[in-house]
C-alpha cells in the first residue's frame, strides 16, 4: 500500500489479487447480491486509491482496508435507500430472492443457505463483527478499533453475536427440516 501511496498505481492490482476474494465474500455474506458484491469490491479498491495519501505506515493494512469496505457498504446502503431500492432496506428480501435463483440454489450447500439466512437475521453490526472475526489477519485489538470499543467489550459482543447466530442457525434447522 505504501508503494501505491508513492504513486505506483499498478501495485494496487497486487493488493486486489490478494484480498478481493475475502472482500467479495464479506459483502456477499452481508446480504448483497453477486453483482452488487462485485461492484462493492471494485468501489473499495478505488476508494483505497483515493485515500491512499491518508494511509500511514504505522497502521495495519487489514483494519484500514476493512474500515473502507464497511464505509463503502454503508454508503451503498444509504444511496440505495435514497434511490428507493428495496433490497438495501430489507436484506432478508434480497436473501430470499437470491435463494430463489436456481443457479444459486445449486451452487450453495443447504447448510450454507441456512447460515446465510441466520446471518441476515442478525443486526448489521453483529453480522459485520461475526464476519470480520473470521478474517485471520484481524485480531481482537483490530476489531476493537474498527468497532470503536475496548478489546474486552468486543470479546463479549462477539461471544453474544455468535450465540445468537447459533440460535438462529438451529431455528432455521427447525423451520426448514427438509433442508
Amino acid at each position, binding site marked *: 500500500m505504501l508503494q501505491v501511496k508513492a504513486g505506483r*498505481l*499498478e501495485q*494496487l*492490482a497486487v493488493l*486486489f489479487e490478494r484480498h*478481493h*476474494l*475475502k472482500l*467479495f*465474500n464479506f459483502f*456477499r*455474506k452481508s446480504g448483497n447480491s*453477486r453483482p452488487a*458484491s*462485485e*461492484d462493492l*469490491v*471494485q468501489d473499495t*479498491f*478505488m476508494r483505497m*486509491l483515493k485515500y491512499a495519501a491518508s494511509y500511514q505506515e504505522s497502521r495495519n493494512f487489514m483494519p484500514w482496508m476493512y474500515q473502507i469496505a464497511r464505509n463503502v457498504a454503508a454508503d451503498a446502503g444509504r444511496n440505495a435507500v435514497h434511490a428507493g431500492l428495496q433490497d438495501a432496506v430489507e436484506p432478508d428480501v434480497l436473501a430470499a430472492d437470491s435463494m430463489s435463483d436456481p443457479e444459486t440454489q445449486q*451452487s*450453495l*450447500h443447504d*447448510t*450454507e443457505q441456512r*447460515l446465510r439466512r441466520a446471518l441476515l437475521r442478525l443486526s448489521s453490526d453483529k453480522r459485520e463483527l*461475526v*464476519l470480520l*472475526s*473470521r478474517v485471520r489477519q484481524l*485480531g*481482537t485489538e483490530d476489531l476493537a478499533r474498527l468497532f470503536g470499543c475496548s478489546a474486552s467489550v468486543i*470479546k463479549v459482543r*462477539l*461471544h453474544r453475536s*455468535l450465540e445468537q*447466530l*447459533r440460535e438462529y*442457525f438451529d431455528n432455521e434447522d427447525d423451520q426448514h427440516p427438509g433442508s
Partner: protein
Amino acid sequence: MNCEDCKPQLTDFSRDQLPAEMHASVMAHLRECPYCSREVAALRQIAALLDAEELPSAQLRQGFQARLEQTRLEQTSIERVGLEQASLEQERPVPSGGHQQRKRLSGLFHLLWPSRPVWACAYSVLLLCCGLVSGQLLPADSLGLSISGSATAVTQSANGAISEERLIQLCSVQNPRNSEIL
C-alpha cells in the same frame, strides 16, 4: 480450569486467538468436559461455514482493471497538464525596465501608505495641516508682491466700473426719457 472459566475463552479459542498457555488450559479442559467440547464443535461448524468462500465472476477482475487503467490515464493527463503549465510559466517574457521601475514605485507607495483606512484618513488630515501651516509660515514678501499687484488691479477695475456708471447717469440726464418727450 472449570466450565465457567472456559466458556468466555471459547470464542477466541475457535478463532485461534488465545495465547499458548491459555490455549493449552482450554484444550486440557475440553478433554474432560463433553459440554464445552460440544460448544466448541458447534462454534467450529459455524466458523467452517463462515469460512466457506464463493468465487466471484471474471467480470470483477476485468472491471477492476478497467477502472484502474482509467484512473491511471486520468492521473497521467493531470500530471501532463501540470507540466505544460509549469513550462508556460518559465517561457513567459521578462518585463521591461520602465515597467519594473513603475512596479517598484508603486511598491514604495504601498509601503508608505498606511494599509488601514483609519490611518490613511489621519495621514491625509496630517498632510493637509502641514500644507496650511507651511502656507502661514512662508516669508510675507514672497507672497506680498503678488498680493499688492492683484490689489491694484482690483482697484483699477473698480474705478473703471464706477466711471461707466457715471457716464450712463450723465447720458440719461442729457437725453430725456421717451415718456418725458411724449
